């Protein structure tokens, strides 16, 4: 119990960060009209492609002689890029069609 309390208190910064981010995420979405649900899902999908940053870090930090690690890192970056680029482009394509004529 005491340990749990200490853990929470010591990580309070990150807890506030998480809680506030969750609130922001929920509040920001809460106002979306139904029409925009599909583009929004797609846009959010593109944003979690930020995981590519992790893939780049792994690759930068890897031992340059470790071929397996380099290969895996390469694949990870390709996958991340697909998520990011595909996500943003397709969202843009959808939203382009919404503009008033």
């Amino acid at each position, binding site marked *: 119990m005491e340990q749990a309390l200490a853990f929470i208190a010591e990580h309070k910064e990150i807890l506030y*960060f998480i809680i506030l*981010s*969750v*609130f*922001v*995420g*929920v509040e*920001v*979405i809460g106002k979306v*009209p*139904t*029409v*925009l*649900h*599909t*583009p*929004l*899902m*797609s*846009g*959010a*999908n*593109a944003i*979690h*492609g*930020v*995981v590519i*940053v*992790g*893939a*780049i*870090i*792994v*690759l*930068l*930090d*890897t031992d*340059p002689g470790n071929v397996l690690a*380099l290969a*895996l890192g*390469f*694949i*990870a*970056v*390709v*996958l*991340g*890029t697909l*998520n*990011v*680029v*595909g*996500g*943003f482009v*397709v*969202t*843009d*394509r*959808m939203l382009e069609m919404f503009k008033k*004529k």
Partner: protein
Amino acid sequence: MIAQHILEIAYLIASVTFIMGLKMMSNPKTARKGNLVAAAGMLIAIAGTIFLYNHEGLTSREPLKLGLIFGAIALGTLIGWRTAKTVQMTKMPELVSMFNGMGGACAALIGLMEFHHNTGNTGALITIVLGIIIGSVSFSGSVVAFLKLNGTMQKPVRLPSYNIINSAIMIGVFGFGAYMTFSGTESTMLLYLLFAAALFYGVMFVIPIGGADMPVVISLLNSFTGLAAAFGGFLYDNKVMLTGGILVGSAGTLLTIVMCKAMNRPLSNVIFGAFGASGTAGSAAESAKGSIKDISIADAAVLMNYSKKVIIVPGYGLAVAQAQHVIHELETILEERGVEVKYAIHPVAGRMPGHMNVLLAESNVDYSKLVEMEEINPEFASADVVLVVGANDVVNPAAKTDPSSPIYGMPILEVENARHILVNKRSMSAGYAGIENELFYNPKTSMLFGDAKDVLTKLVTEIKSL
């Protein structure tokens, strides 16, 4: 040091663009700009990481590595861009599903590679193992969802008492993960076994769910991937991964719930077996009330041509038949003849929220002709003809009248107030909810059987010749 500082600021800016982007995407006027804002932030975060990231003693930037990174990005951009630009608008759910799976796989791979660097560091291992499990589930689940939407995997596969089996598998996977975290093991074999187990669970999670429920599943997996990205953020104490991941995780969860609400069924229903795939789909056997009336294309053409006001109700069948361009043609020709034409857009018509708007916008239908349910409902009374194309559940009066119906309580388009109702579908089969629709037996209703594209094309030709 200064590079580090600039990178932190770049991450801060990127985080703000993510928030602003999501916010702007929630308003039709700013949505497109919002997407671009978030994309710009992403670019800043990626470029910053490539050039400025530095973990003392570990990071190195040999030409080989930089080559790999830029090569990977170029390859990913090429494929992603092309796919996104060429895919048909009706295939949106598949596409989002696929891209989502890629993100999940990326998160899982990061975990696989970081595992051995962090032996003994329990805190880091927790985030790594969770990243692997959630990322893998999201990946394999998305692939199954993709195959189902694609039509490759048609029927939901259901083992007997699959809910219990799935729960057992889930507990097993997490137990395994806990072992990997706390035992101090360094076995690569076990690590890949965990990866495989998580992938397997992802498949088992999605496989029993009906194809029609896939959009909800994708939205859920979308928030899973967000979570996996956030775990990556914890691992590297990387703020932009944290904000991006948590934002999508929470927003995605809410969006999932909102989607379920719009269809009037609880999320648990979708995941733990629901009508979307239960036997009822075939057994639309409730005693038919009255008889069905057919109408010929020629008669329908005359009827519409001499109306004052026609309201079109597009549904899932229109999307499947890819009839969005023909319907626009029909609308144009009717308007030329002085008929007022509007589209009645039900929020959950089709298979994704907003599906019909996207689809009809693609075929250049004037935005102002797309009228939301609440606004158009009072107008049906003044319509001479309602043309229902490939819609079923969204015009089913049982939602208002029959408390025992699974869709009871869902708001519907009140088409029965119009003078004539024309319904186009291929047969008498049920829609998504798998239930009988009394509307088809309404004395005012005439059926126009056939594939939506065929029927509409003929209708257009017929009207032109009048």
